[in-house]
Structure formats: structure tokens, C-alpha cells
């Protein structure tokens, strides 16, 4: 497998950034290229675009088909639950009429879940390659965890962790 440009992989194949300045249009720009060639060679451009066309039609057609079929065949029951915030699960509020404080516990819990969920996505690969990543990898992960801790601390101080 080839290298990646990102830090988790060994270095030898990491791309070197080309150091020259470049700008399009400085030279040769005024010749609006009728003669500009894409070096298409023997490839018939129409054929190249046939797959894309088929792909597009297939994808869009299938998506449209499944939704239309669902509308045609599925039972139609329009009721309150259909337009509720959550189609299933617990009704999120006790709905104090005329306003009032809103228990956002579920929402805060979701937020907590996301914080730790995301943490893992990055921690696993890091842990696997931990011994090769040297100090830089450690510091980077430490910074990442610190940043992750900040919203956690914020939630805690704001009372988001207290379940009355």
C-alpha cells in the first residue's frame, strides 16, 4: 500500500511540497485555446462519458424508484407522530404549555455520547501505531484530548451532568 499524506503513516513516501511558484495565466494565456488539446488520443470522449451517464441514471433512477414505490405501496397514516421531532422513542418533553424551562437532558446526553464517540475514532489508530509515532504523536494526541476535555468541562460547569 502506498503512503498517505497524513501523519499516521511512515514518512519515506510523504509528498514533498513543490517549492516553485506558479500561477496560471501569466504566460500563454491570451491564446484562448481552440487548439488546447486534452491529448485524448484514441479514446472516444463519448465512450468515456457513457459510464458516468449510466451511473447517474442508475443512481438517480434507483433512488427515485425506491421512494416512489414506497409512497405507492406503503400505508399512508399521517398523524402527529409523523411530524414529531423523533419518530420513535420517548416524547422529548413534558411540554409545559405557555413556555417554561425545558429539560434538555436527552440532548445533553447525546452531546456527551458524541464527545466520547469521536474520541475513539482517533484513539484506535493512534494506539495501534503508538510506538512508532514518537513524541510528536504523543503530544498531538495530548492536545487533542485536551481540546476534547474543554467542552466536557464546559458542560460540567454549566450543570449539564446533573440529572435532577
Amino acid at each position, binding site marked *: 500500500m502506498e503512503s498517505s499524506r497524513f501523519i499516521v503513516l511512515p*514518512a519515506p513516501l*510523504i509528498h514533498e511540497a513543490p517549492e516553485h511558484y506558479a500561477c496560471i*495565466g501569466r504566460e500563454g494565456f491570451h491564446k*484562448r485555446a481552440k487548439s488546447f488539446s486534452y491529448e485524448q488520443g484514441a479514446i472516444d470522449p463519448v465512450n468515456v462519458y457513457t459510464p458516468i451517464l449510466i451511473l447517474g441514471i442508475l443512481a438517480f433512477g434507483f433512488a427515485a424508484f425506491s421512494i416512489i414505490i414506497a409512497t405507492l405501496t406503503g400505508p399512508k397514516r399521517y398523524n402527529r407522530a409523523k411530524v414529531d421531532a423523533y419518530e420513535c422513542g420517548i416524547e422529548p418533553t413534558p411540554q409545559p404549555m405557555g413556555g417554561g424551562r425545558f429539560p434538555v437532558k436527552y440532548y445533553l446526553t447525546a452531546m456527551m455520547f458524541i464527545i466520547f464517540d469521536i474520541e475513539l475514532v482517533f484513539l484506535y489508530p493512534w494506539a495501534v501505531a503508538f510506538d512508532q509515532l514518537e513524541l510528536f*504523536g504523543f503530544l498531538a494526541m495530548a492536545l487533542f484530548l485536551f481540546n476534547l476535555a474543554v467542552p466536557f468541562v*464546559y458542560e*460540567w460547569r454549566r450543570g449539564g451532568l446533573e440529572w435532577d
Partner: protein
Amino acid sequence: MNTGTFNPPEIDYLAIAPILIIFGTAVLSVLVEAFVGRTARRPVQLVLVIGSLLVALYFVISQAGTRTITANGALVIDGPALVLWGALLVLSLLGAMLMAERTLDPSGDVFAARAAALPGSEDERQFTQRGWVQTEVWPLFLFSVSGMLMFVAANDLLLMFVALEVMSLPLYLLAGMARRRRLLSQESALKYFLLGAFSSAFFLYGASLLYGFSGTVSLPGIAEAISAKPSQGPLLILGMALLVVGLLFKVGAVPFHQWTPDVYQGAPSAVTGFMAATVKIAAFGALLRVMYVAFGGIRWDWEPMLWVIAILTMFVGSIVALVQTDIKRMLAYSSIAQSGFIMLGVIAASAEGLSASLFYLIAYGFGTIGAFAVISMVRQSGGEATSLSAWAGLGRTSPVIGAVFAVFMLSLAGIPLTSGFVAKFGVFAAAIESGDTWLVIAAVVASIIAAFFYVRVIVLMYFSAPAKEPAVVAVPSAFTTIALAAGVTVTVVLGIIPQPLLELVANADVFLR
């Protein structure tokens, strides 16, 4: 498979210091929310925000002339990036001034005391009565600014996507926090969010196709792949189309523009001013970089497409603005039309086009933020007087504010001796030099149509009898006054002596890759 030795990426921390400072301050500012007492929060946050913007600006200025690619090619600090950074930081500073304003609204703030409180509820009334102020806007603001800074310096599609979201997500929230007219504000936040997420999905899918085409997400890498591959498959074309859609959404190009009027109208004027100026700059910065660096080699492919979009954008923006009755909506359509004009600089695809676009963006940013500062000052009993009819006769009842607003309108209309004229002239000349004569003729026609509605506001302010319920101009604190003075000064000075800025952007007319 990880058998090689790991070489940490070389990161030029000094070069990317502005991003780090703003991002770090944003994190700090979240901690301030957590630990500092309620009364002290606002001053602490303001010091943090203004201080960090100034320090970041110092770093930008101190390394003028730096041209480097860092962080394994993910971030590029070149002329355009530095110019855009400077512009974004200064305009954010002015935007922060508008958001910090507390004297205009009799109830004390432009933001809802608690964004989560139900509009019209007893809770909300109590929060307001107690004089609680919203300070959570400041971390959001800083995160958004750091996203913008990253967006214009991102040299690969992944970082660009992340920056796009870091820039946008806080703005979705800020749009929904108006103290007055909360229903409108929340609705605008919802629309902005759903459509913004929709567009970023297009961006991402486009990026994935380009990755499939070139095997890399770095912009120069894509350019290399384009020049290396003899047959450029459908992946490239489709990927480019979807990627560009995501960016065109952010600049407000037709037909991806429809969120603009709704969001500009619904969001608090301070946020709208900030957003209108800075998001446009950041998004055009990214669009320019993508088009010039990654797709520069196939410009014959995308130029006709942008022709279509630019013409649609200029005309739809200008024409629909004619019939608007709300000043914020009118300015939203005006911003759409202005996007069309700036696209001329993109289409020119030349060094002149790039520097002209940069100048235009800066001129537009100051004019717009100033115009929204005026809007936030013109009030009626129910809050801001955004209905155009309430503005009738304003030029006579408040001559100074009327004149200042007229200057902004004239600048947006491109009348000489204002920054708008030099800016328009620049992009038109760049496009003509690149051979897009017909496009420029279309643009000139569109700019005439656009002049109608700008002049209409002036006519309304000066030549109409005051409305039955005339708007009054509230006396602002130093914050708004500074923002307004800066806006009008830059607009006039750039019209009379644009030379220093022109030289600056002329020195920044190449993308490093």
C-alpha cells in the same frame, strides 16, 4: 504495514500563528464560559476576542512576504492567503464591534439572553429583566473566524472541508440568536443549517470523486494528476462540478443563492454584517484557490460553466433586488449580484483577475459591514426598522447617517470616488484582458440595473416625505461608531487613493503551490 520510521511533519508554527491564536483563544473562551462568573464574563470575553484578533493581525502583518507551504502541504501561506487573513481579521474586528453593541436596543443586547428559552415565555422575560447577556456568542464567533482563516489557506480538500464546517457551524447558531423577532431568526438558522449541510455534502462527494480521479486530496496533487493523465475521465468533471457547487453555495451564486435573503433578513443585523462580509471573502478565497491551483490546467472546461453562473448571478441578484421591500433582503440580493461581479475576477483566471478579486472583496467587505451597522442603528418601536418604507425621509431627519448610508449605496453601485468603482473597474479590466469581453458587457448592463435599487434607497431617503411611522436613528456606543467610521473611511479612501491597497494585492497575485 507500518514498517517505516515515522517523521513528524514539519510545521511552521510562526507562519500559521494567526490560526493557532484565534483557535486557541476560542478554546480559552469556552473555558471562560465555564469558570468566570456571570457578570465578569462579558468584559473578559471582549478583551479576549479583541485582543486575540489584534495579536493575530500583528502576526499577519509581521510576516508579510512569507511564502511557504507547511504541515505536509496541507496549509499554504502565500500572498493571497495573507491578504485575505488581514482582511478577515480586520472585518471580524468590526463585526465583533457590532456584536458587542449594547446601547442601541433598549433591552440591552442584540442577542437573546438565553438562546434556548422559548420566545415569549416567562423565562425569557425574566432573563431579559435580569439583564443577562449572551456571552456564548464569543466562542462561537472565534471558532468561526478560525475556520475562515483555515479555509483560505487550506491546500487540500480535506482541510478545506473541515475548515468549511468549522466556519459554518457556529454561524448557523449565531443566525438563530436574535433578541427581537426570534421566530424569523430561528427560521433563518434552520434554513441556513439544512441548506448549508446539503451543500457541504455536495462538496464532500465532489472531493471523494476527485480523490478517486487523482489519488490525492491535495490541490497541487490534483493539478498534477490532471496534467499527467492523458484521458481525463468522468470522475474529474463530475467531481469538479460537485466541489464547485459547495463553494458556489457559500458565495451565494445563483441558483445556489436562495438561502441568502432569508438568512440575511432573519439573522441579527450584527451577525448578518459580519457574515456577509467575511463569509463572502473566505468562500471566494477558497473558490479562487481551488480554481486557480487545482483546476488551472483545465480552465477552458470550467470557464463557460462559470460564465453561465456569473451571468445568472448578476442578473437575478440585480433584478430581484428591485422589488424588495425589506432593506436587509435588498442587501442580500445586492450581495448576490456582487458575487456575480467578483466571479468575473475568477473567470479571468489571471494574475490580474486574482488581485482584482482580492481588492473587490476587501472593498465589498467594508462597504457591507458599514451598511449593516447603519441598519442596526435605524430603529422603530419594534426593533430595527428594516422595512424600506420606514426609511423614507431619513436623509432629512438624520443627515449624517443618511449621507453615510448613501456613500455605501454609491460604493456598492460602483460610482467613482468610492471603493466600489475601483473594484468594479479592476475586475472588469481583468476580464476584458482575458478576452471575456461579452461577459463584461453583460456585467456592465447588470451593474446599471443594480444601480437602480441602490439609487432607489437614496431617492427614498432624500426625496420622499417621511413615513407615517418614521424610523429614528438610535445613538450608538463607541463600538458601532468605530465600525461605521471604519467602514465609511475605507470606502471613501479606497475610492480616492486606492494605490496602497492596489499595490498590496498586486504583490499577492500568485498562489503558491
